[in-house]
């Protein structure tokens, strides 16, 4: 296993699994001229918004632009639970 990891540790995670997903991602970035900094800022504002509306963020927040028929759709996944709710 150590040997296996030694060869694979440099390998980056693919940005998308299928060619279609990858194309969708590539086109979204191109069409909306999204830069990573902007997306990170957007992500942190979403977390603040959750706080304002009474939610605790309890997991990894992901913000992924997707492309559908020349329209960019920003998909945000934010795992939350209401503030004060007991932890599972």
């Amino acid at each position, binding site marked *: 296993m150590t040997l296996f990891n030694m060869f694979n540790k440099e390998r980056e995670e693919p940005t998308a699994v299928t*060619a279609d997903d990858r*194309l969708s991602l*590539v086109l979204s970035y191109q069409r909306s001229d999204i830069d990573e900094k902007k997306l990170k800022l957007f992500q942190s504002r979403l977390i603040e918004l959750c706080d304002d509306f009474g939610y605790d963020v309890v997991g990894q927040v992901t913000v992924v632009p997707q492309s559908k028929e020349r329209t960019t759709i920003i998909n945000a996944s934010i795992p939350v639970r209401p503030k004060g709710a007991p932890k599972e």
Partner: protein
Amino acid sequence: MSQRSVAITITSGKGGVGKSTTVASVGLGLAQLGHRVCLVDTDIGLRKLDLMLGLENRIVYDIVDVIEGVSKLRQSLVRHKEYPDLALLPAAQTRYKEEVSPVQVKQVVNELRKEFDFILIDSPAGIEGGFRNAIAAADRAILVVNPEIPSVRDSDRVIGLLESANLDHIDLVVNRVQPEMVKDGDMLSVDRVKNHLAINLLGIVPEDRRIIRSSNTGEPVILDGKSYAGKAFSNIARRLSGEDVPFLELEEGTLISRIKRLFHIA
């Protein structure tokens, strides 16, 4: 001016996707249907259409000569021997794209409208000056795309540039499709390419080794009766001519399509 005269730019963004092959075969297809067709090569410095049509030895003047007043437009047109209704206005081979402007190309194309029904403008690769020259006079555009991510991404950028130049009538030709690779999930399907780019599909052209042979012999693949790609280009010409032609069945593996292909009815 010809009432039906229409100027169409064939473009792609990315190089090597089959723009000139498409222009040569579709142009010939339109001439076979009885239309008067002029092919304009705007790839100044890197001309190809003359070779694809087997006309390279008959060029005397070119588009830059016309623009600079060295020759008259009619003198510079090279007629096809078998199809005299098909003419080529060649690009200069020893000049640079920057030496002509979009306004000058537009003037030349407007002059051609008086004599031809279809003017097909072969655009150079890229989105710089040569591309702007090629779209200046166009009424509509055909985007040639290969089913691979770099080609689709470039085409998507080109669609944005065409739309910002008020060229809204854009048709899609998906070239070099390999059904077996699509079936194995190794190539984007025509449907996916079409959905991503969201423009009208004008043609589907399969990958065909006969195209290499045709560009080496100077006989457009549309003249090759055994070529599936030739049939696809013929269908594109018929669609441009106003006919309602179904798309080719590209499922090579099925017995029915093999039989259809054998009898040239697919």
